[in-house]
């Protein structure tokens, strides 16, 4: 069917490009998942084939669940990610509101200062951070990780959210002031619901690097009881022998929580990314 806006040819081309991209993006994940269900021999013999009756094995998952305290690692990762995310969103949104709503001396400078962190990688300060954590006795605590990740996530969240908050109608906030709402209620009840798509975007962009991070858990919290899942999976990677079954199973399991969080935010996310592009 031919219509003014679409033709078959173009539509097929567009879908072909999108499909190719999807395949490329999903392929590594697919390989990790199928191999996690295979025996060690089968992984090396034909890494790309699907598990069949002969090569199917739970051995990887069994190792992961038995060896090491995998549930604890999982819990640690989840605690660190969720708490950091909540703090980043709360403080980021509040700072963004202040920067976009109030006129004060040094407003622009403050905004620039807070956004500077986007350009300077926080890992450059690792030594100083470690010294700080040692001095304050926070080494090997989840608190240390949460503090670092909150600092890491704030610049981007302030930058994105203050852009969005500027678009919230001044009249609406002023109507709230005339009705006697406090600045906190204006922020939580009027402004936050309107920037929800932007919050979801920030949440996803903040969440994934935190969940995947290996660097800071390794340096700040390598103790057994504070290991995160990425660090925990490293147990299976040895200098000479690597237990691939276990590594792949651990990674497959680690995808699940991010997937769940992503599904929660994704409907909002798409609106956040396309906001402004189309009204």
């Amino acid at each position, binding site marked *: 069917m031919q219509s003014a806006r679409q033709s078959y040819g173009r539509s097929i081309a567009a879908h072909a490009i999108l499909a190719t991209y999807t395949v490329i993006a999903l392929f590594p994940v697919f390989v990790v998942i199928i191999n996690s269900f295979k025996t060690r021999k089968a992984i090396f013999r034909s890494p790309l084939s699907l598990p069949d009756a002969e090569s199917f094995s739970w051995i990887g998952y069994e190792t992961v669940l038995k060896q090491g305290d995998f549930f604890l690692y999982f819990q640690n990762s989840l605690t660190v990610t969720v708490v950091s995310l909540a703090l980043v969103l709360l403080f980021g949104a509040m700072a963004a509101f202040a920067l976009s709503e109030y006129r004060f001396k040094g407003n622009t400078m403050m905004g620039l200062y807070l956004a500077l962190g986007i350009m300077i990688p926080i890992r450059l300060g690792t030594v100083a951070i470690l010294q700080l954590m040692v001095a304050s006795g926070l080494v090997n605590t989840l608190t240390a990780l949460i503090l670092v990740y909150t600092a890491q996530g704030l610049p981007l969240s302030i930058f994105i959210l203050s852009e969005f908050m500027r678009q919230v109608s001044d009249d609406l906030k002023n109507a709230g002031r005339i009705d006697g709402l406090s600045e906190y209620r204006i922020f939580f*009840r009027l402004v936050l619901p309107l920037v929800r798509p932007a919050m979801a975007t920030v949440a996803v962009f903040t969440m994934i690097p935190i969940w995947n991070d290996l660097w800071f858990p390794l340096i700040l919290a390598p103790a057994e009881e504070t290991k995160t899942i990425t660090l925990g999976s490293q147990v299976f990677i040895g200098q000479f022998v690597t237990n691939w079954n276990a590594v792949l199973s651990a990674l497959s399991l680690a995808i699940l929580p991010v997937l769940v969080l992503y599904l929660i935010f994704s409907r909002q996310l798409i609106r956040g990314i396309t906001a402004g592009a189309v009204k």
Partner: protein
Amino acid sequence: MGSLKLQGIHKSFGSVDVLKGIDLEVNDGEFVIFVGPSGCGKSTLLRTIAGLEDTTSGSIEIDGRLVNNTPPSERGIAMVFQTYALYPHLTVRDNMSLGLKQAKRPAAEIKDSVSTASSMLSLDELLDRRPAELSGGQRQRVAIGRAIVRKPDLFLFDEPLSNLDAALRVNTRLEIAALHRRLEATMIYVTHDQVEAMTLGDRIVVLHDGIVEQVGSPMELYNSPANKFVAGFIGSPQMNFIDAAALDRSDAKTIGIRPEHIQPNKKSGDVKGRVSHVEHLGGDTNLYLETENAGLISIRLFGEHQFEIDATLFAKFDDKRVYRFGDDDKTLQ
């Protein structure tokens, strides 16, 4: 119960002076319009009265009470915004009652106020809807209802009709006029639309570049403008300004004559020109003459008239309605 007194109001944003000393008194029950071109400070002035902006200097008294340091919610005012500014997550009923709930008034009183306001504006059927389910006109009525519910001493309107289409604008204008008669409340209304200003106001305050150019009733402004700016701002099409030297007059710098006070004449008149354009509006005809020495002159005639483009015509001024402006642009008597 709703008087307003402004004395020496100054407001600057950084190094930019937006308001440069405004003095104004509004009496109880009056309908006062702030009018002026964009950027003249009229909205800023309204927001200073509301307490949404601090003044740099000067005093604001509402009802004889100095309110410079009083937050907006305690000034006894209510405001209607151009963009309606309804709370998107609340129903119409909750939108209207939020202010009173915040002030911790008894539930019975709130219910009473809301139902009075909603029947006044025929909003009864819409009370349980959310703003997103309303049309533009309905939203603005809800915004007006929200203001009425607060029973303010002073109503502030910030260009409330700008976002409505032409037909709704006329209806809502009539509604606001009726509301003013019925509530006998003091109202201040900001607009850049001179038709709204002329039709609604008891008194009009013409603002320009942060100062008050003239305050007066609509007919005072039309018949005796204080200066060239007011003369040009009030009236549509705009008053014609002609360099006095071009007419061989030495008693003024500029001569002003409104389009409706000029008659075209085939044989003789004050200036001679060529018809450059004719606009037929049905009730009116606007005629544009490209004159030899006085530039483009617009003439407004009542009823239908036919003119040939490029025909030569004379413009005859009504001598009693000619305004003279001096070197400082003030009107000469």
